[in-house]
């Protein structure tokens, strides 16, 4: 184990590039679990990739880019975290990988904003093409819109993996223990954002009793997820049915 060559960094950079474009198309390519697994295959430590992907997935529950909102990028984080954790090796590879992955996920929000903003330029390119009556050129601008999206993920992964060994040395030597602890706590606190986003979309002020039922079922009775879903579904049908089938929200 140790440093990665140019080729490994390039392969992972290309995966990062296409995983976000695949996600825009609606395929599950930009999932931390999927990218953790793929990265594990590339660097030869599938178990580590699955472990890091699993932890990051639990942090990401409830988070989605509703209406184009920027959220932490756990996909890019899984790639870089798995690659660097595997390079370090040893028994605490997962902990080290996650210690890298969480700040990467947070930092990537800045590049997500940059990527989304840069694509505006392509929109204007398409508009100018339209003014000139050139539909072929408009089509090209649209398809080229994937470039800022892909680069905003591909470049940091390529550089991060290439810099692997130096980054590990920095982490091990330079980053103080309190920072690593702070990162771990931050990671465990992050799901609060996802849940708050969901609740704010579902009009909690009016519909709070349902959330309270779910909380009580788990906190006092330990009902697992699928059990919650069954109870929620039954409640939903009883309530909408008793109102004569047509809801008047």
């Amino acid at each position: 184990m140790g440093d990665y060559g140019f080729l490994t960094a390039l392969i992972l950079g290309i995966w990062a590039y296409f995983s976000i474009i695949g996600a825009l198309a609606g395929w599950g390519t930009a999932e931390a679990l999927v990218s953790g697994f793929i990265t594990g295959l590339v660097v030869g430590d599938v178990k580590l990739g699955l472990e890091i992907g699993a932890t990051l997935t639990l942090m990401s529950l409830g988070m989605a880019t509703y209406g184009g909102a920027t959220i932490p990028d756990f996909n890019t984080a899984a790639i870089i975290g798995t690659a660097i954790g595997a390079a370090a090796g040893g028994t605490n590879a997962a902990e080290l990988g996650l210690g890298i992955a969480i700040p990467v996920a947070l930092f990537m929000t800045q590049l997500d904003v940059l990527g989304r903003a840069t694509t505006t330029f392509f929109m204007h390119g398409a508009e100018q093409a339209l003014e000139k009556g050139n539909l072929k050129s408009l089509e090209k601008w649209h398809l080229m819109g994937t470039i800022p999206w892909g680069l905003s993920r591909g470049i940091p992964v390529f550089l991060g993996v290439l810099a692997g060994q130096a980054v590990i040395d920095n982490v091990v030597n330079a980053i103080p223990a309190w920072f690593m602890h702070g990162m771990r706590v931050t990671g465990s606190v992050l799901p609060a954002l996802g849940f708050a986003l969901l609740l704010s979309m579902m009009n909690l002020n009016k519909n709070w009793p349902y959330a309270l039922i779910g909380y009580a079922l788990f906190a006092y009775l330990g009902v697992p997820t699928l059990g919650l879903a069954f109870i929620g579904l039954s409640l939903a049908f009883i309530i909408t049915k008793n109102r004569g089938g047509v809801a008047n929200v």
Partner: protein
Amino acid sequence: MSNERKLDQATLRKMALRHNITLQWSWNYERMQALGFAYSLIPAFEKLYDTNEERVAAVQRHMQFYNTHPSMSAIVFGAATALEESYAPDAAESIKIGLMGPLAGIGDTLQSVLMRPIIGVIAAGLAAEGSIFGPILMFFAQFFWFAIRFPLFNWGYKKSIGLISEMVGEGIINKITEIATILGLVVIGGFVPSIMAGVKTPLAYTKAFEGGEKVIAIQGVLDGIIPYMIPLLLVGFSYWLLTSKKFSPLKTLLALIVVAFAGAVAGLL
């Protein structure tokens, strides 16, 4: 205007592919999915209009702001295709504006509130045990939402303008939204304590008893009052920032990082 004509199957297939794969490929802050929608209609305009001027004017009509759940958009795109085919551009425009909001709500709730978290917990559990079915399950849970775009497009195309009366008029949108909301809230209510169970305080204090001392963990005291109190407070704090304070998700994220770091350094978390 050109003489009226119909779109053949090959053209419809090409349009569905364009929309279902590339709708978001030029997503941007200004018009979001507008260019993707216009791009996907071009094959229709090439069949329906003879001159480049007419085609350009038709594309121009679809360059206005548009954004919705990309899978639900397939319904809208199907209906818009049917309306463009019957040379009713105004109806195509109004169906986009009328449906994008409600359908975004339904799509986000079903996909990101219900399906992804539920499957995510199962998939993460599998992966943590070292099973590659974890990532496979996660991939297909998302891919499912891509696959359904094709039947949704066909449905929207068949329904055309009837979509509005059927979905809004007969209250289907409201009913689905309400069912998804109730189901979603029950599940999230349970997720807050279960997913965030690890957020605890290590604080403790020593209490003197007759004949000795006893270390009392604050977490145990909190659990006695309300179980999972810290996760509830953190979600409540984030919710308050997002709604009352009108913070963006990004700003809320920064606030959470500050709280987590401050709590960690102070030894509270």
